[in-house]
């Protein structure tokens, strides 16, 4: 009977190995992702078709749709001129970010880009945002699941060893 249970558990663990891998990061090193790191540079100099990921020829196929979209986009652009256009910034320059903590900080050598210009309506509308409480702690993301999973596996193994010795 217990052999049947062991087989089912083993099959279950083997079958769920891939999705369960994230549960065992405390014990199993996850696979290194391919180092495909796109250059963080922007994009202002790229053609429009590159930004949207579409071939340039596709832009010429819907002329009547273009008129309709342009009219809608123009109306929206007039409502918020600062938000309706693409904004690109200069390449990053080294500095510490202002949104993170200073104590214990271990900034890597890197870069800080010039942030995009905030919309003109910021000061008027900030009251609706509900400011982040300054000095807040990072949310509690600790989880006992990896520990529980390892304890469960250890219990199963210990139980199997005890029963084997007894029998």
């Amino acid at each position, binding site marked *: 009977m*217990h052999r049947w249970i062991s087989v089912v*558990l083993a099959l279950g663990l083997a079958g769920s190995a891939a*999705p369960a891998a*994230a549960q065992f*990061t405390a*014990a199993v090193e996850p696979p290194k992702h391919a180092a495909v*790191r*796109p250059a*963080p540079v*922007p994009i202002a100099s790229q053609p429009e078709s590159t*930004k*949207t990921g579409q071939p340039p020829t*596709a832009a010429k196929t819907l002329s009547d749709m273009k008129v309709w*979209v342009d009219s*809608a986009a123009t109306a929206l652009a007039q*409502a918020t001129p600062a*938000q309706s*256009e*693409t*904004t690109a910034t200069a390449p*990053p320059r080294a500095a*510490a*970010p*202002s*949104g*993170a*903590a200073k104590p*214990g*900080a271990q*900034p890597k050598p890197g*870069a*800080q*880009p010039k*942030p*995009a210009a*905030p919309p003109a*309506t910021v000061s008027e*509308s*900030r009251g*609706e*945002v*509900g*400011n*982040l409480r*300054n000095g*807040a*702690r*990072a*949310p509690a*993301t600790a*989880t*006992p699941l*990896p520990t529980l999973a390892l304890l*469960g596996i250890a219990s*199963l193994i210990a139980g*199997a060893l*005890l*029963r084997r*010795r*007894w029998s």
Partner: protein
Amino acid sequence: MNRRAAGLILYAVGAALLLDVGVTYARGVMASDAARAAWEREQAHRSVLTIKREVERPYARTATLALGAPMAHLVIPAIGLDEIVVEGVGEDQLNAGPGHMPGSALPGDPGNAVISAHRDRHFHALDHVAVGDTIITTTDRGRVTWVVVGRHIVPSDARALFDTHDATLTLTTCWPVRYLGPAPDRLLITARPALVVSRAAADSRAMFTR
């Protein structure tokens, strides 16, 4: 006999623990799928009128987001992360996906947008994100390409999050990522916008080139 009983008890305890972990994980997967479906449904049914309403009342939506509601699409190409961010950082929300800290700015809005996730699930590879990597967020109001400008490791009880005047994105998770028991520290990834495309412009381009 005692050994047999002890073995059976250990079997039962181990099975119960694994079952609990499995059920929690399965609930998280289902909640994540539901959040993605809701996000895609919401995006598919957007209209020009909706966009116009949001543009006329910028920054008004943050206060109306319900806990657990999908609020952004988060992509980190360097680590293959592609998740729907839900509102809230409670256990239920973090089980479903990365959570947006209530009260922090929406990604791309002026202010510090804080997104957190568990180190053993959605952010399990966050430690591989390096300065200079790009992060892409998409919300109702636009798509922002961010550049990582800093990595900070702070104690879990450190008061480490502050509001900012400019748009800032802060991703947090537990540190060390591979650690048994409650992790003592937090990893903070800070990013600044490099490219901002408003939703109206993005939609227009998408429709024009479709």
